[in-house]
């Protein structure tokens, strides 16, 4: 039985004449946390957008749950709805916190929206802000709202683009707990982009290192952090400048 949620083969994304993302091969097991690391401009966010089916790859194929998506067309809505993504700077809509959290459920025509929103807000510790306008919440709270909004419809895959980049340590811990809980309790597969090596050590089941648009190394955390094959990965995890 193949337990990989994603299998990427020969994926390439080109803007103009510049290849911004290249992944020769990558498999992401179900219910695991894959952490993608690398400096800014390495192609990590582009890779997430490809995996979220927000844009098509220029070449190669993304095999999601055994089905190949390589023809440049967006997959059917039912497939797209199994994956969600939280941006580094999430976009919120006019209205209250609870209205924002309810968006995904309303798109799916779900019932008991109010009850589920209330439970989810409790889970992320934001019950007291249910009626608050989005414009009035702090950055940390907003990031938790974004994660609640993504988790409320039980996605199979949660793609997180530097979700703790602008947060204080307390909120970082809260967000990491939410991610770990999603994986442990619901079996959600998480792909997390971060530049924080310590965060990667805390959360990852598998780590990938990207540089200049290319996924250059993938491995288990122990291997990557203690004895990575590529010297550029070794330099990055030691906190050295990587070019």
């Amino acid at each position, binding site marked *: 039985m193949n337990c990989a949620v994603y299998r990427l083969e020969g994926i390439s994304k080109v803007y103009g004449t510049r290849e911004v993302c290249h992944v020769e091969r990558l498999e992401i097991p179900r219910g695991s946390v894959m952490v993608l690391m690398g400096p800014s401009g390495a192609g990590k966010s582009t890779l997430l957008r490809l995996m979220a089916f927000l844009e098509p790859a220029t070449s190669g194929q993304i095999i999601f749950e055994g089905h190949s998506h390589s023809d440049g067309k967006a997959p059917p809505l039912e497939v*797209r709805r199994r994956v969600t993504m939280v941006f580094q700077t999430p976009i919120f*809509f006019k209205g209250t916190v609870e209205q924002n959290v309810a*968006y995904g459920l309303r798109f799916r025509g779900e019932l008991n929206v109010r009850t589920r929103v209330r439970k989810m807000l409790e889970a992320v510790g934001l019950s007291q802000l249910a009626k608050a306008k989005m414009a009035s919440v702090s950055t940390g709270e907003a990031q938790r709202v974004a994660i609640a909004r993504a988790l409320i419809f039980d996605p199979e895959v949660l793609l997180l683009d530097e979700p703790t980049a602008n947060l204080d340590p307390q909120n970082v811990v809260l967000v990491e707990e939410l991610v770990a809980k999603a994986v442990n309790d619901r079996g959600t597969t998480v792909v997390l982009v971060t530049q924080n090596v310590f965060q990667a050590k805390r959360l990852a089941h598998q780590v990938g290192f990207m540089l200049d648009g290319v996924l250059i190394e993938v491995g288990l955390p122990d291997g990557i952090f203690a004895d990575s094959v590529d010297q550029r990965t070794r330099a990055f995890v030691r906190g050295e400048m990587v070019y």
Partner: protein
Amino acid sequence: MDSSTQITHIVLLSLGVSGTALLISSAVGIPIGVWLGFRRFVARRLVIAFIYTGMGFPPVVIGLLVYLLLSRDGPLGWLGWLYTPKAMVLAQVIISFPIITAFTMAAVMGVTGNVRLQLLTLGASRLQATLAVLSEARIGVLVALIAGFGSIISEVGAVMMVGGNLKGSTQVLTTAVVQSTRMGLFEQAIVLGIILLTISFVVSLAWIALQGRSLLEK
């Protein structure tokens, strides 16, 4: 017909003609504005240039075109619409359509592309994402409707040409103001002018209220 009945008839006809024209131009202009706001295609800039040109088209020229279209020897002369409210509606649709389209397009473009991506990641279908973007851009769309209505309720040249300003039949507020002024009936002209301004103001307030925004909102 006494003067108050006459004024009531003029007001109702003005609202009827401009309201119908707004309804038609919105039904066509809003979807096209949304489409232009979202889509990128080869001749997009050319289409936008045409629409912007339409926004600046002098109403009298539109009146002339509609007149030529509907006159007895014109291509649509067989309709028999000239000097009827239908001709006035047609002229006003042509005047307000580019305004509503352009303002809607600008409102949709003002909502960043990331909003659409965010909606898609939350599982929105293309239609749901489009409607949600439209909802985010609703203030801009409201401005489009107000601007479109303002441009036609206050317009005089085109409706005068194609309607003929026939008392009790095609006379609307603007053409009645012109006629009253020409006849030296300044009091009546001022009353009609105040009614016209009041209609514009009340319609704007009503639209803002329809958008669910308190008028006292800061």
